[in-house]
């Protein structure tokens, strides 16, 4: 069986989800081809077919269109079918020409499944799978379902009509998609993210009692991650006399926003922004931390929370989308309402004052659950059934 994965670019070294998925699918006998806008030359896992370039210069664009469309001569039947399908959806002639050009790299291929890695990537290509005789799958990941449609009303109308199977990483995202018009009668499978539990493995016992609490968040510095809310909560703890070090691993566009919030909330001596770290460095940081916070405003599921649980950290997360499925409240960690620093602060104080045996139980439950429910092996098995 041949699977065509549609992504914006070839997965980078650190994007373990897609690289491990491709490897394991190949191990299970699947052929995988990637359709992308850009290609990293280091990527050698599977065949990569790049989308045609869009030029600002009209002459270059015209030349590129002529060359690209000429190459489609061997796929005339597919192109004719595609044009017919677009006409049935009342697409204008000009838009059909544009779409044929933009989808030409897929129209010339034969695959059994055309799987769009994010729902946004299917926009403008909703009829391509049908034209090439493939089944169409789409993954829901977070931004594409929770945020993009707020700015682009009815953007998935055509996708809902033509998609054959849906992959969601959480029930919450699925719920939002249903509210956006996806029919519940569609074939839908929930496959959560997974982590390499061999790598994120707690070696020793619980961290010894420290006078200073080591708190951690691993996240891109972006408004969705709710780091300002976390800082507000930690300011409450600081004002109550708690001694802690809060480490934030990651970088991003909101760096200045977060540095300035740290400064204004008088947390300069309490917070360390350490930037992006490689996997081994992050593992060391997890190992030296007691408490993990993920107070996101919007979150698909969050691998970092799985890693933190596997590493035996006490996790306090917000109720944003998939996080409340990632953590079972009061069993494997704690879930607090999002955008509510007071509630987070209250919960942190409650957790810090729990008896040691209760903390140990939560840690144990979390490690156990990640080991049993969130391994890459299980995830791949589910993907194998997904395509069957």
């Amino acid at each position, binding site marked *: 069986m041949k699977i065509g994965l549609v992504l914006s670019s070839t997965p980078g070294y650190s994007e373990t989800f897609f690289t491990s998925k491709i490897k394991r699918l190949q191990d299970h006998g699947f052929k995988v081809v990637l359709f992308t806008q850009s290609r990293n030359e280091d990527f050698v896992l599977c065949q990569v077919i790049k989308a045609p370039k869009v030029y600002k210069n009209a002459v270059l664009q015209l030349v590129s269109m002529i060359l690209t469309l000429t190459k489609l001569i061997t796929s005339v039947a597919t192109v004719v079918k595609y044009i017919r399908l677009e006409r049935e959806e009342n697409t204008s002639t000009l838009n059909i020409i544009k779409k044929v050009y933009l989808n030409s790299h897929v129209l010339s291929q034969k695959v059994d499944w055309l799987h769009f890695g994010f729902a946004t990537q299917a926009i403008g290509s909703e009829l391509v799978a049908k034209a090439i005789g493939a089944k169409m799958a789409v993954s829901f990941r977070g931004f594409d379902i929770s945020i993009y449609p707020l700015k682009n009303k009815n953007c998935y109308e055509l996708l809902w009509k033509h998609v054959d199977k849906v992959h969601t990483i959480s029930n919450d995202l699925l719920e939002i998609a249903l509210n956006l018009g996806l029919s519940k009668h569609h074939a839908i499978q929930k496959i959560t993210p997974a982590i390499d539990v061999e790598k994120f493995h707690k070696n020793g016992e619980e961290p010894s009692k420290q006078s200073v609490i080591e708190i951690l968040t691993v996240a891109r510095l972006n408004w969705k991650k709710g780091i300002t809310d976390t800082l507000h909560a930690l300011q409450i703890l600081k004002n109550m006399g708690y001694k802690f070090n809060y480490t934030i691993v990651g970088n991003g566009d*909101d760096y200045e926003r977060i540095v300035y919030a740290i400064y204004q909330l008088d947390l300069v001596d309490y917070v360390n922004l350490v930037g992006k770290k490689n996997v081994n460095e992050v593992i060391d940081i997890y190992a030296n931390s007691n408490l993990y916070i993920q107070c996101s405003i919007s979150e698909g599921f969050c691998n970092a929370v799985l890693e933190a649980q596997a590493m035996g950290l006490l996790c306090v997360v917000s109720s944003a989308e998939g996080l409340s499925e990632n953590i079972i409240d009061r069993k494997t960690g704690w879930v607090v309402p999002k955008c509510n620093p007071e509630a987070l602060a209250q919960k942190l104080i409650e957790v810090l004052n729990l008896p040691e045996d209760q903390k140990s139980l939560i840690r144990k439950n979390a490690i156990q659950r990640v080991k049993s429910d969130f391994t890459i092996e299980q995830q791949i098995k589910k993907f194998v059934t997904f395509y069957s």
Partner: protein
Amino acid sequence: MKQDFSVALYSGVSKSTTFIERLITGLAEQNIDVYIFGLNNGKPQKSKHVIYKTYSGKLHKLYVFLKYSLGLFLFKNNEKKRLDRFIKSQDQNKFHLRLKYYPVLYHSPTIFHVQWAKGLADWMWVKDFGIKLVLSLRGAHINYSPIANPELAEMYRFNFPQIDAFHAVSQAIGQEAENYAANKEKIQVIYSGISKTSLIPFKKKIVSKKDDLYILSVGRQHWIKGYSYALQAVRKLLDKKVKVNYTIIGGANSEELLYLINELGINNEIILTPKMDYENVLYHMQKADVLLIPSVCEGLANVAVEAMALGLPVVSSNAGGMPELVIHNKTGLLYENRNIVDMVDKLLYFNTMTEKEITSMATNAFQKVSEQHNWENFKSAFYTFYKDQISIT
């Protein structure tokens, strides 16, 4: 009569922010020749005293480069050689540096006034050619960028002691600049000036509130504007059974705001609009009950000055220079920066104020703006500010 000195106002582009354009107008009205250098993105000033020496497009850049290379070679060859030695020592594209610097050296204004501090290092050389160097202290460049960027803070600490004079948009930002070795004696606060006559048609006539409290904010969506705090405050007001409508002019299409509005369930109460022209903003101010400034970082918001001149009450955070304009319970209401509970309290308090109290506050606000942001005072303050630099040798 033409003044005996000229000023270059440098913001990198020919068409700049409202404040800078007002400054240009004010100087030109006093017969001061104002040079504008940099990239041409429009020439809004029509006065003969405003001299645009800008460049745009590849061919035009080449023309400007050749013209000023020849001009300097013929009339200021020694200075050109000195500047070329400096350019050679720089680790940047030499053509671009020459394109940027040659027109300035050729015209050699008496004062070179840098508007944005981040670009200061590029212009320190003008001092070696007898040009006075003045810097404006405004916005993010002083308030938070050097906190987030230690290299920038270091650049400020190195260069600020050599600046001839600083113009600060508020006392607060002046104090902030002192953290980066700006000499207190050289900092002069000149508040922005507005011409009240242009606002008369939009003067707010009715202060009584209708059933719904109509809150207005104006400004692009950026985290410093603090709109996420304001949206949460609106949710809390609704929970307290206060009917609210909140419009953010300039907030359209922000993913963060759209998401929060949806999550907080306040879609029916919020309008996000694209940026509007000045008259449209004034029209909305005329209709609103209160202007909310939820900024977490602010030099001194011009939009508050305009609102107060129109008679629109202001509720603002106490960020930056805002307390210099909004005096709590006198010329407006102030709440503690980043404190949603306090913001809600002040909005609730405003909602219970009587018509008489609101009128009194609006009158005080108008008085404050008339004194502190008087157009004629603004012009003469800058005139004296520049004149003082020339008299210092």
